[in-house]
Structures are given as structure tokens and as C-alpha cells.
């Protein structure tokens, strides 16, 4: 990481700490904001958050690794999460999975070479009546047919 990038990130985190507060109860909101923008929370970011909130870096790391939607490793620009829970599974999740994998040439848990898309499974999205469901970043798509799923993926930048 370049010094300039580091400085920019520090500044950004400082703003977030200013916005949400220094109390521990603001931690998740701050981490979510970093995750939303950068799609991951780097070790430097974790330490900066810890420093500014006066907690230990390992505590931040502990929180980040607990929540499925926060991550410590860089991911693609778009995170696609396919629901793997029972109703979506029964509604044809497997077919969507296979189609999407073939289309993108990656498996679930991987990121495309151009960093455009990361594929992940997720647990119940609360769309059980309209499965199979898929979350693209924070947007939800339901009643997916294989073709529709591919169209959605091909449209995102």
C-alpha cells in the first residue's frame, strides 16, 4: 500500500469515526461503511479503526471475522451471494449455481480475474417464497431462472 493511499484511508476512517462516534457501539457501522466502499477491510484499515477507537486491533479483527458480510481479503467490485438455504435449494439453487459458475468460469468463493465479480453462498435471504434468490451487492433478485441470472451478472459492471 502506498503512503498516499494509506493517508487517504486514514482520513476516510477519521471521518467515519467522527460521523459515528468513538464509542465501541459505533464499531460495526464504521466497519460496514469501509466494507461498502472498499469491499474489504484491510489490515491497515483494521489497525487504524482500532487506533482511533482506542481498542486493540485484534478486537477489530475478531469482529470482522465474525460477521459473514465483512471480510479481510480483497474481493471483486461486486459481490454476488446466492442463497443456499432450504427453500431456495428446493427451488433450483443448484441449477443457478452451475450456470453461473460456467458463465463466469469461477467457482463459488472465487473472484473473476478482472475483479468484477465475487461469487459466494449465503444463508437465508428471506425470499423463500420467491426462490431461488440472489443478492448482488445489496440488491436482491428473486425467482431466478438460469438465463435471467446470467443476464443480471452480465449487466453489472
Amino acid at each position: 500500500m502506498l503512503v498516499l493511499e494509506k493517508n487517504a484511508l486514514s482520513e476516510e476512517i477519521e471521518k467515519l469515526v467522527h460521523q459515528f462516534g468513538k464509542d465501541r457501539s459505533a464499531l460495526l457501522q464504521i466497519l460496514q461503511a469501509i466494507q461498502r466502499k472498499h469491499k474489504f477491510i484491510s489490515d491497515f484499515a483494521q489497525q487504524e479503526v482500532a487506533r482511533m477507537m482506542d481498542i486493540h486491533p485484534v478486537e477489530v479483527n475478531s469482529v470482522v471475522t465474525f460477521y459473514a458480510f465483512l471480510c479481510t481479503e480483497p474481493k471483486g467490485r461486486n459481490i454476488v451471494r446466492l442463497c443456499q438455504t432450504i427453500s431456495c435449494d428446493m427451488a433450483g439453487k443448484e441449477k443457478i449455481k452451475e450456470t453461473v459458475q460456467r458463465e463466469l468460469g469461477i467457482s463459488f468463493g472465487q473472484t473473476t480475474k478482472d475483479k468484477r465479480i465475487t461469487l459466494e453462498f449465503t444463508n437465508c435471504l428471506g425470499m423463500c417464497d420467491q426462490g431461488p434468490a440472489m443478492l448482488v451487492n445489496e440488491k436482491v433478485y428473486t425467482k431466478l431462472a438460469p438465463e435471467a441470472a446470467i443476464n443480471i451478472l452480465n449487466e453489472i459492471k
Partner: protein
Amino acid sequence: MELEKTISKKRSGPVLFSEYKLGEGIKKALEIGRENILFELRDSGLKGRGGAGFPTATKWMLSAASLSDQKFIVCNADEGEPGTFKDRVLLLEYPELVFEGMIIAGYTIGAKVGILYLRGEYEYMLKSLEDFLATLRKDNLLGENILGNSSFNFDINIRLGSGAYVCGEETALIESLEGYRGEPRNRPPYPVNTGYLGHPTVVNNVETLASVPHILLKGGQWFKKHGTDKSTGSKLFSVSGDCDKPGVYELPWGTSIAQLLEIVEAKNTKAVQVGGASGICLPKSQFNRILGYEDAATGGSIIVFNQSRNMLKVLKNFMEFFVEESCGQCTPCRIGNIKLLEAIEKIEQNEFTFMYLNNLKELGKTMQVASKCGLGQSSPNAFISILENFKEEIFGLNGKGNGNGKA
């Protein structure tokens, strides 16, 4: 949005999906006062709709009685139970009920701050909910001096989860709000005494809070007329799986599973999972059981399986879910769930003995009583009930199956 405008909705039902005018609940609450709110609520017999079924009036009374200068209302919108999506419907289509329920709760117990803990998966709703809160503020239903009542200030903020099913457990939710890992706390003390930031906190399910305005408007006795003696009122059921009309249904408690299956046009049904992954799986012979706290209790998740489904695969899906979603702090849940999953894999590979499986069922019973929170206490339910109720299919004891789980 105008105050007097009736909100017209597509849905209909006896309580929650009945007609409602924005702001009426709050007006009524301010009119009858704190004590009467608690009385109405007690009369209604309303119990927590998240699944645990704790009497709502008791919860409110305990925290209302507390002398603490700071109290909190938390709306638990961390709807993560597989097969549950009723809160999604309430938040998208009936936000006024949910928020008014929170405001009334705040008024009753003397809280100034309400927090809606919205699961990360529902982030797409955030904008519309924030907009709705803005409307409420504009209409003086939220904020300072609500409806001109100078002693009543209450505001609501929305906090997002980040993908952790266990945060639906109220103390884990509080930990998460406080910026920690969503690890459930030791109880007692309970959140009504020592909750968010150590202050008395009422954590209610979305549906529970949404019921409150209707109860105040029409009375506890009216509410009680719906449902059964022990399960008063109506319930939202999220129905998914093998049926022609999946979706959210408002039905009185006491409806039988068979009746429900008819309504949702389920055909050729083999089994019904009541209460989501943490619930129990009932075979056809038990479809006459009724939905209610006294019989088949549920937070509303109904998953229908027809004859083509492999129940062992269903069970495996559930156990994989729990292995991932256990917070991992207590022994029975952290290690127990993986043992149950291993057993399923062994059944799949036909490498098990019944003694071993009996051991694991006993372990499941220990998990039900010795785990720290509801997650570990209920995760063995599916294991125990599916292996018991579908043993012919799974073990091929009736001669039809091949003994390795394939019917």
C-alpha cells in the same frame, strides 16, 4: 403522506392485515395512558412473535418498572430463520405498524430511543424505511413533543446487521449493537434489566410490535377473540417450499397444518417443517396438529416438502446452516452441531450404527438443555425429529429405501 389517509393494501387478515390509519395507534396510546396500554396488552395475551413466546406485557412492565434514566426499545428485524419472511412484508408494506409499535413501546416504558436492527440482507429496504421515518417526523409522530405531548420525545434509528443469524437472539443482537461479536450473553440478567449499554432494553420482534397498534385500537379482548386460549390473536405464517401459493398468510393461531396446506394449495405433501431450521419436522400423520404455543410453536416459518424430497438432504441443509451460523462460543453448540452433521454424512455413506445414532440423539437432547442460547438449544430439533419421523425413508427399514438415505 397525510395523517388521515387510509393506507390501502392488497393483503387482508384479521389483525395485522386489517385496515389501519397512520398515527391512530399512537393517538390512542397517548389518549389512554401508560397503565392502560399495559392493561390492554396484558388482556390481549400477546406473546413474542419471534418464536420464544414470552408475554409481551410482562416484558414491557418489567422495564417500565425500572427506575433507570435511560431505556431502549429495540425492534428485532434480524429475520434470519430459514423459511421466514413475514418481517420483510411488514417492513416493506406495513412500516407504520412496526414503527408505531416501537413508538408506543417507547412511550409506555419511558424510552427515548428506539433502534431497528435490520439484518444486513435487507439493506435494500434501508432507504424506504429511512424515508418513512422522515415522514413520521414530519407528521410529528416521531421526534420531539410527539403529537404535541411535551413530555414525549422518542426517535428511531436503524442499524444494520452484517450477516449473522445468531444476532436474532436478543442478547447477541445487543452485543452486535454495542460493536462486539454477536455472542449471546449469560441470562440472567435479562435485557429488560441490563440490556443495550447496560440499560433496560425491550427487544421485540417486528410482528410483535406491529400487533400493538391494532390491540390498542380494538382492545385486548378483541384480539383475544382470535386464536386459542393459550395462543391469542393471529399469526403471520411464511409459507415456502412445495406449494402453489407460497407467501405470507395471516391466520388465527389454532389453524391446523392440514388447513394451512389447503390454503397454500400444497399437494402430495410428505412433510412440513414448522418453525424453520430450528423447528420440528412433522410427517403426514401429524398434520392434524395445530399451530400455536401449546402445540406446534413457530415464529411463522412453514416449509412444505412433497413426496419427491429426500428428507436426509433436507436435514443436511439445516445442519450445514447451523454449523455455519453457530457463534462458536459454547461447547454444545460449537462442537455438537458438527457432530450431528457428521452423523448425517455417515448415514449418507451407510457407515453408521444405530447405537452411534442413539448416542447422537442423546447429545442432541443435551444441546437442547445445555447450550447457552436458543440457537444451540433448538438446532438439534430438526435432527431429532427428522430421524425419528422419517426413519423408514432414511434407513430403509420398510424395505423401500436402500438404507443410505435415498427413498
